[in-house]
Each structure stands twice: as C-alpha cells, then as structure tokens.
C-alpha cells in the first residue's frame, strides 16, 4: 500500500500533474460516497447488532452448524453468506459483527474477510445493470453469477485453511 502511494505520486510528479489538487478531488469524491452510505450503515448495523445481541444469530449458527461443519465452513460466516449477494452495506455490518465477536486472526474472521473480498453484491449489480440498460435480466445471468458466488463461498474456507496451515 505505501509502495503504491509512493509510485503513483512519483508518476504524477514526473508527468507534471498537480498532485495535491488531483488527490483532493479524488478524496473528496470518495468522501461524498462514504457519507451517502452512512445513514444506511447506521440502520443496518443497528439491525445486525440487535440480531446478534438477542441471541438469534447464535441460534441460527447452531442450527446450521452440523451442515457447516461437514463442509468445513465456519458457522459464524453463515449470515454473511446470506446477505452478501443482496447488499454491500449489510454485509459490511455483518463482517463488522464477525470481526468484533471473533479474534481477527481466527479462522472464522479470516474466512469472512476472504468471502467479503472475493464476492460481490450480485443481485444488486444485476438489478442496477438491467435497470440502466433497460433489458430484463435473463435466468442464465442469475445462474452464472450465483455459480461464481457459490464457488467463492465454498473455496473461501478451503483456501483460508490451506494458506494459514
């Protein structure tokens, strides 16, 4: 990360661009995006924390634990798997919950991080593109996208286990 920063700044200087102004423009744009996410994030994190505090999340994890254990899948990550295709902010909230309940270097937290980084908000993306282009999404599009997601969810614990073994 520091390397990228240095390399890009150096490249900007060599090309004689106004590095500071450009940086501020880009940073301001992303800050605006972040601010626009905030109200949603407050609602979602409240909901997820209520779900966790009530004990319902543990009950859900316990319910799927036998199946999850057979697949080598950490039960704590099940809620993340369920919300990941639907909403980016909601999965951020769930990941935050997993990271604060488990040690960040635990198997569950690492698997959750890998799942989060390796998959996308599939349904949202399909809906947004279809709406923008004005074509109805075809069933094949859903099947292919979900094939990618499911592969990601299955591979995440496997690869995490092998990598940190």
């Amino acid at each position, binding site marked *: 990360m520091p390397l*990228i*920063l240095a390399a*890009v700044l150096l*490249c900007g200087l060599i*090309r004689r*661009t106004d590095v500071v102004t*450009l940086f501020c*423009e*880009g*940073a301001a744009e*992303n*800050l605006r*995006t*972040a*601010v626009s996410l*905030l109200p949603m*994030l*407050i609602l*979602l994190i409240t909901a*997820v*924390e*209520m*779900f966790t505090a*009530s*004990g*319902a999340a543990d*009950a859900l994890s316990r319910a799927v634990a036998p199946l999850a254990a057979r697949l080598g899948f950490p039960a704590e990550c099940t809620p993340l798997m369920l*919300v990941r295709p*639907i909403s980016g902010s*909601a999965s*951020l909230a769930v990941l*935050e919950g997993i990271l604060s309940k488990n040690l*960040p270097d635990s198997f569950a*937290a*690492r698997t959750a*991080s*890998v799942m989060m*980084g*390796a998959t*996308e908000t*599939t349904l949202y993306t*399909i809906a*947004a*593109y279809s709406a*923008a282009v*004005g074509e109805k999404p075809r069933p094949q*599009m859903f*099947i*292919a*996208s979900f*094939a*990618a997601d499911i*592969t*990601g969810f299955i*591979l*995440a614990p496997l*690869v*995490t286990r092998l*990598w*940190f073994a």
Partner: protein
Amino acid sequence: MLCFLLTLLIISSVTYAVSFGDTHALSQAAMDGGSHAITLFLTLSAAMALWGGVMNIAKHCGVTQAVTLIVKRPLSLLFHNVDKSVTESISANVTANLLGLGNAAFPTGIAAAKQLSRQGASLRTKTFFLVLNTASIQLIPLTTAKMRGQHGAADIWDCTVPTLIVSAGALAAGLLTAAAICPNKRTYENIILPKDGERTPDGTCHAPDTRRRAALRTDTQN
C-alpha cells in the same frame, strides 16, 4: 429485498430476545448500533478517501490507462466477437473493478452494457460481462484490510492472497457456467433484420421470413 431483510432481522431479534434471550442486551444493542456505525464509517471513509485521491492522480498520469492496456488483451479473447469500441469500454470497466474504483466502475460498466445491448451481442457475451462485474475482481481488498486493522489483526494484508485465489476461482466458475448454459447467438432486439436469404452479421440466421419472425418473438420474450 433489503426492506424485507431488515424488517425480518429486527422482528426476529425482538421475538427471539423476548422468548428466549436477553432483552436488556437487545435494547443496549439498539442504542449502540448507531455509534458503532459511525466508528466504522470513520475507519472506512479515511481509507476510501486516501484511495480515491491516489487513484485520481493515477488516472491523470496514465497509470490507469496502462492497466487498461494490460487487461485489454485477455479481455479481447473473451469478447472476440464484439467491436473494438466495446472492448475499450469493457477494459475501462474491468480496470476500475480491479483497482477498486467503485465510483468509476459503474458508469463505465453502464456504457459498456449499453453498447453490448445496442449491437445485439449474444446472451453469452452479455453474461460474461455481467459475471466480470458480479464476481469481485478487486486486486487490493482495502475495505476488509482496514476493518481487520481496526480490530487488531496482526497483519492486515494477510488475507490478500487467499482472497485473490478465491476471486479467481469464483470468476472462472462463473465464466465457465456462462459458457456452458448461454447460447452464443446474437439477440435480434436492436439490430436491423436482413431480408430473406441474407445472412445476419454472424452468419447464423437465414430462415424464411415467418420462421425468422417466430424466432425473433421467442428470442425477445425469453
């Protein structure tokens, strides 16, 4: 969908807490959730702002264009039957996704998707493009790294390589599935139909008029 999910979450937690659990912990969580959201927002917005700034410099000094040139070659293998201008748009979109430029990925993606639709690209081509956007291909998992750091992970970047491996696997599975289930035939929605006996640009359709009309109808309905 999200409204339904949220309501379900809150109702089920209230029900569960009242019947089995800890109502005190529940009301505490309801009060604390917002401030935790603000903490998370502060963590993430700092990283997002830094990244946005650096990438804006990269855009103006030719770094993103260089990445676009690199991704163009493998992409033109995947999208060999579309026009050059479409490959350009797709490359710009893939570059934005690779570099984690959420703000740039969507508009470039829309532009590419519109071009594909206007050219009557095959369902397979369209699905390939969609899978490139629904499978996360971001090279640097910035958000998760930042969140792991906030919770005291020893090495915040240690999940980067596993993430990339899983991303690649998921992308491959998506593309292979698309190749297996999508017909590689052009959709005749927005292109001009040839007369009887003439061939469509990809040379597949030269059926008599009635059959072609029927094919057109089923094609647009599905």
